[in-house]
């Protein structure tokens, strides 16, 4: 928590004066300050997946490719790539100019060494599932034998990655976009224990556009530009990444203390004030972040008809228009309009009368009060839950909201004792990202793991060409609104604001962790 003063004491000159004098003393260095609402954790590149860690990694390290907001890919350490005819092997041509920030040349050996380190079972790497499509390792991304991960160097400038089975290229690239390449010469003599120690990674060194210079834990990290960056010298000389409470984002932007927010955006309540500021450029962009209602189908009364009725009883438009003030989109399936696979006909209508009739016909026990688990920490979601409870009350379903912190809610929902829950997902451009919640440990719907939507989704995901995939994903969406394992509610727009002194900012790519700060210009 925490609030902030918009302006500092004008009588004593305040920090505005201090700021200009400090930048003057740094001989006209172009400094850009960006903010994020929460601090980074440990800086091991394959640790627990955290948006805030990603912000740091994006400046210091490079992966082979990065994904753009429209689903396409930008080559980073890889200049180009080609999938073979069988669709089970990708050859990457690597950039020849890339260098490590300590001066050493970047070569294919670095890629191989990184992959081998990430797949080493003695190394703690919570998000190495990114490697799961690569041959030679299991579903967790752990190697099946000693250094068996099928990543081979062909000389210094070419890397060949063999896949377990024919896979759609974008699916693999999307995961590789999250695999940061680290320097072989840095890790080759380290034991697993040393790799697992936070000290090893605390002062990150990569091939990226910004060189780590200083940090205050939990508060800020400072970088200087990598003048010999292979994609061009950044216009920015000094980059400061600050941790700022989301309530303070707007005031920081208004008085110029921060130039933009890299993740989390402006809180909804502050958006109208943000748009009035003359020094800010504001964009409201659709994103893949969505909220969904969990329905526990292991309860005998949660039949398919009841689930359909619940879906029909929810006024999604009211949620977007009243709660989100229009800054979002309704969804009926996990695939949003950003995706090329989006089926606009797969929509669930809002019809409380029909919902009530369906419930009566299904023999729903109206005298039962359903338990509704709501995690704290996201006010919009909490309010959505309250509004949904009212929607359900209007069709005769009584609910009792129980708030608890996220960990508790997750374990409760997994244990299958609660009737309803509400959680959010960051979503990705991969239309199959919802598979994890339809089958396996994360199947909070408690439907049998071989349920129809899951089966169709698996089939769609393994199709290799766009022509084959489109109709399958359409089929998936139709099946989803029929089976209704969950009630998908809405996506929330990214509310991005940045200072007018910045140019060439592409907020549409922020959602895929592709900030391209190296390409920003500063007035």
């Amino acid at each position, binding site marked *: 928590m925490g609030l*902030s003063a918009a302006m500092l004491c004008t009588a004593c000159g305040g920090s505005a004066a201090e700021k200009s004098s400090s930048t003057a003393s740094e001989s006209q260095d172009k400094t850009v300050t960006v903010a994020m609402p929460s601090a980074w954790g440990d800086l091991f590149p394959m640790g627990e997946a955290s948006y805030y860690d990603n912000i740091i990694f994006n400046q210091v390290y490079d992966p082979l490719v990065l994904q753009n907001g429209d689903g396409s890919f930008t080559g980073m350490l890889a200049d180009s790539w080609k999938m073979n005819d069988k669709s089970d092997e990708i050859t990457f041509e690597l950039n020849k100019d890339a260098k490590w920030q300590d001066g050493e040349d970047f070569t294919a050996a670095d890629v191989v060494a990184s992959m081998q380190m990430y797949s080493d079972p003695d190394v703690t790497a919570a998000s190495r599932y990114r490697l799961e499509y690569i041959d030679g390792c299991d579903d967790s991304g752990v190697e099946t034998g000693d250094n068996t991960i099928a990543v081979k160097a062909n000389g210094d400038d070419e890397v060949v990655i063999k896949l377990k089975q024919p896979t759609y290229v974008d699916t693999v690239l999307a995961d590789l976009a999250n695999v940061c390449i680290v320097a072989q010469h840095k890790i080759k003599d380290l034991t697993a224990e040393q790799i697992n120690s936070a000290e090893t990674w605390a002062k990150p060194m990569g091939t990226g556009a910004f060189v780590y210079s200083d940090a205050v834990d939990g508060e800020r990290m400072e970088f200087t530009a990598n003048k010999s960056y292979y994609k061009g010298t950044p216009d920015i000389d000094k980059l400061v990444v600050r941790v700022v409470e989301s309530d303070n984002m707007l005031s920081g932007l208004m008085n110029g203390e921060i130039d933009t927010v890299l993740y989390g955006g402006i809180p909804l309540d502050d958006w109208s004030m943000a748009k009035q500021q003359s020094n800010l450029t504001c964009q409201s962009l659709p994103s893949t972040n969505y909220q969904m209602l969990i329905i526990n189908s292991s309860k005998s009364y949660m039949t398919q008809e009841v689930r359909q009725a619940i879906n029909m009883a929810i006024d999604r438009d009211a949620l977007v228009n009243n709660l989100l003030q229009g800054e979002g989109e309704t969804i009926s399936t996990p695939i949003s309009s950003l995706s090329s696979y989006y089926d606009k006909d797969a929509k669930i209508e809002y019809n409380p009368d029909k919902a009530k009739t369906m419930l009566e016909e299904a023999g729903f026990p109206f005298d039962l009060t359903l338990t509704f688990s709501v995690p*704290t920490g996201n006010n919009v979601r909490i*309010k959505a839950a*309250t*509004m949904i409870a009212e929607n359900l009350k209007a069709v005769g379903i009584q609910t009792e909201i129980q708030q*608890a912190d996220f960990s508790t809610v997750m374990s409760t929902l997994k244990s299958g004792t609660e009737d309803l829950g509400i959680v959010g997902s960051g979503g990705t451009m991969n239309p199959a990202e919802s598979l994890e919640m339809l089958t396996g440990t994360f199947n909070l719907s408690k439907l049998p793991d071989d349920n129809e939507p899951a089966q169709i989704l698996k089939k769609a995901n393994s199709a290799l060409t766009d022509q084959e995939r489109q109709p399958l994903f359409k089929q998936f969406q139709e099946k989803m609104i029929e089976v209704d394992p969950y009630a998908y509610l809405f996506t929330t727009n990214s509310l991005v604001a940045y200072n007018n002194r910045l140019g060439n900012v592409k907020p549409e790519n922020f959602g895929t962790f592709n900030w391209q700060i190296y390409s920003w210009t500063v007035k």
Partner: protein
Amino acid sequence: MEKEVRSSYFKESFARLKTHKLAMAGLIVLSAEILIVVFLPFILPLDPYSTDMGAFSSGIGVGGHILGTDTIGRDIFSRLVFGGRVSLFVGFFSTAVSLLIGVPLGLIAGFVRGAAEAVIMQITDIFMSFPAIILIMVAVAIVGPSVWSVSIIIGLLGWTQFARIVYSKVLSVSQMDYIESAKAIGTGRLSIIMKYILPNSAAPILITSTYSIANAILTESAMSFLGMGVQPPAASWGNMVYEAQSIAILSTKPWIWVPAGMAIVIAVLSINFLGDGMRDALDPKVNI
């Protein structure tokens, strides 16, 4: 003989209390609060839970809401009254729990002595050496936050002061001459407790209880403010102030959070005035 002395002691104390203006004011305000939060919902149609879809964060008087609505459209006045139920309940119930645990433990420590005394005193030392609110937060995180868990846990962590009072009373009373003679004629422990210990402890226990209630109200509201106490949709004065952490609410919508905060101040103040008055009335030599 002792009974008469004692009853006139309490009669005199009460007479003294009546002259203490602030204490009486506190008593009246507190009684009024209790009556309001208990009975008003039966008289007026107060609904602290349903959301008025047409009136989010609306101001005073808008749409029939006396004190306006919060960000989800719930009526502030209703929530204030129901929140009062919660906050006052937590205050009184937790103190009752503390008494139920502390008094017997103090008696045991004082009478049984030996190992029991050492263990009990060591435990009170442990509890008093650590910020209670942290222990309470951890404990509430275990069982899940709710009105019951908060009340019981605050009570579980507040018994030490009562144990100490009773313990020291037992020790001091045991040394009195009339106790020696009572024991000599075979008066049982229980009747010593009932006739001498408890009446003599009544004053400090009563006084400490009032401060304990006030303290519990403050603790619960702080925890609910942090989101670790009573959870919405249930209303508590603390979680009503929670919304003020957004700068927009803080500066532009004071009706959402100020009433609840004021309610806490008034409740605690009136209890403290009462406690002070009781202390002065029951123990006049301290008052100069």
